[in-house]
């Protein structure tokens, strides 16, 4: 399963593996919507096993990051793989979305 969900007391961690192409980005959007509707305050999207992240995936992540923020909640990206980290860096997503990333200068 490319997306698995691990709820804990105050948060939910989504583990996304493989190629986040257009199709998986759509599945991720559905999963994020379901997770947000459950009312959780913190969502982690764990990208340690993701090998590819395209702009469709980035748009899904950005839209839901904003929605969570507007609701006073938070979405973090956790443990991006080197390939995904490179994409997050080149698009300026890393500083604000990756948990533990240094803030922008």
């Amino acid at each position, binding site marked *: 399963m490319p997306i698995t969900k691990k709820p804990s007391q105050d948060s939910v961690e989504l583990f996304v593996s493989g190629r986040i*192409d257009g*199709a998986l980005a759509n599945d991720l959007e559905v999963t994020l919507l379901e997770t947000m509707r459950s009312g959780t305050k913190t969502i982690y999207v764990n990208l340690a096993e993701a090998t*590819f992240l*395209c*702009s469709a995936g980035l748009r899904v992540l*950005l839209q839901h990051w904003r929605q969570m*923020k507007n609701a006073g909640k938070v979405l973090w990206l956790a443990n991006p793989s080197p390939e995904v980290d490179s*994409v997050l860096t*080149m*698009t300026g997503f890393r500083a604000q979305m990756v948990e533990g990333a240094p803030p922008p200068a």
Partner: protein
Amino acid sequence: MNFVAEHRLRNNPADAGQLAIWMEDFAKQARLPLSVRQAIDLALEECVTNVFSYAWNDGREHWVLIRFKADSHEGSGSAEVEVEDDGREFNPLAFPPVDVSVPLERRPIGGLGIHMIRQLMDSVTYRRENGRNILKLVKRITA
């Protein structure tokens, strides 16, 4: 070493997986370094996604030509991919660059695909010929 291959891709979601398969074959046959393979893989995905999104609005079946070429000697050279379609005139390079310093709260949603293509490739050129859009992506191979 020289490698050339050409494929046709339909604008049908059912065929979406073909691109990754051809890319893997190109990388293997041309013995591309991993970094080159990853860069072209992603840039090509973005390119084809843009074509499928903007080239046609007639609801009909269309084909995109994908041409792969690699030319290297003793670990140096270049890998190229050309993407050609018969859609309406669309030059992705005409879009302004994305300012990645804008905070995410205010960042426009669009333009990321083209930004990524520009960042990943050493050269990106567009031309319109005989009613067709042709985008050429080039990545250097270094020893």
